[in-house]
């Protein structure tokens, strides 16, 4: 079964910051990773 991304999914307009949507997505996922790391340190420190 073929797995394909529909043509509508490709970005047409650039974001207002960070130049490309790819950079924005990387920032969001990096932010999540940072939060998890901080929460992990928080949990370990206060336990």
């Amino acid at each position: 079964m073929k797995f394909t991304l529909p043509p509508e999914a490709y970005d047409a307009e650039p974001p207002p910051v960070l130049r490309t949507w790819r950079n924005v997505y990387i920032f969001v996922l990096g932010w999540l990773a940072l939060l998890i790391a901080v929460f992990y340190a928080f949990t370990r420190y206060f336990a």
Partner: protein
Amino acid sequence: MTTLDWFVMVAAIIAIPSFGLWRGRGGKTTSHYLLAGKTMPWYAMGLSIMATQASAITFIATTGQAYVDGMRFVQFYFGLPIAMVILCTTAVPIFHKAGVYTAYEYLERRFDAKTRALSGIIFLIERGAAVGIALYAPAIVMSVILGWNDRVTALIIGIICVLYTTMGGIPAVTWTDVLQMIIIFAGLILALITVISLMPHGVSFTDAVYLAGAVGKLNAIDTKFDPDNRYNLWSGLLGGTFLMLGYFGGDQSQVQRYLTGKSVEQSKLSMLFNAVAKVPMQFFILFVGAMVFVFYLFAQPPMLFEKTAMKAIQTQPGYSAVQNEFDAAWQKREKAAEALNAARKRDEPGNLQAATEAYRAAQRGIEGARKSGVALYEKTQGHAGFNDTNYIFLSFVTRYFPAGVIGLVIAVILNAAMSSSSGELNSLAAVSVMDLYRRFWQPDGSDRHYLMVSRMSTAVWGAWAVVFAQYAKNRGSLVEAINQVGSFFYPLLLGVFILAFFFKNVRGSAAFWGMLAGEAAIVACALFTPIAYLWYNVIGAFVVVVAGLLFSLVGNEPPAVIHPAKAA
């Protein structure tokens, strides 16, 4: 409540929806009523998405959950940023460019009418149940604080909510949400400042955090993989991602928010705003609950936080012994907490270890004493399952917060209830009218006719929500109840949208039967396995996709033709 509290509360409840109605005024078309004429900026959509998700339950139950169970519930939201990024590359541009009113309308263009109808009905069942529970949450507030009847309270909140939703449609809902979220943020910050300022002399903010952490209340991350454990890092990242994909990608109450955007770009920004802000916000709310726990180390809490339950056991034989046990356990824990705080400040490792062990033992002692109280209440009622988690925060607020702040916190909770309920009511009306009424009963009506039916549908769903709210009592922690209901249905929506977006050879019947196979798998998991409910999202969506692919191999349906004019 003082006169000032009443003034703050009533002013907020009346002024905020009035602002929403004024700001969203103008349009007289179905498109304006259900999609705001696609004119919304990203920040309004972003705050509205957040407000719809952050119901009163978020504030009442989440803080209570942190008090009882610690902060591990925050892991539930770890899948949200991942889901938002995935949806920004798939659902947001696809739905936007398809020009649909609802997510399920797209399914007919992609598959067939029965798949659209099944998806719409699944949404109506799930969201119809959730909107009732969301309305009941503020009724708890009033029953605890003012002694009002739960049913009357749910009715009043429901009427206000239905009025502005019916009159103004989604523009009024969205602009009301914007103001409500600003009030909610302000209220949360004020609540934390107040809790910390109420700590006794000699207990600093750092001390409070240390005391909460010593008995596991700051357990934000649990890295141990255990499928039977509801909240750990892995269930949050995997199960949470699937749940959020289903929620934001397949639930019309959320899809409708980003369909109101001026452009795809604006809609994506609104989603990514949530991706960045939601996890810290939930952490903050849970942290407030953990601080309430620390406060009650030094001020005796009631054995049961639900006043009516306390009254019920006070006349029972054996009450005095149970209450004495609880009082003694609390005094022991207070002394243990003070000893630990002193040992920590003296920085003596040997004493610190012993004091920590004594404090933890005292915590286990008070938990045991509370269980005795719960058991006594359950014995009087003749059934198990008592849970007063939802009363903890409100009981604390009304007893200890200063005048004015109580009114603001109550306003926050009532506004949160109305903002989530109004968005849900509008989306329920959109699906009822666009996916069922217009598609199957009355396809040739005028725009004015559909606008009128949309308004009527909003009012009918509002009435349903109020009736359903009467049966939400004693459902345990309400936030969990909603998420559990969602985990029975969202995987089906997620699975069918995965098939729609990524597997273009799959036909309508295969998708339809795949959804039914997915539901069978979820019901089997719930009935015959101990698997935690978050995993239903992964299992259910997986079964829908695999079954859909298998059915498409054996079927001989012609390929679907995706055409904007095919659906109504």
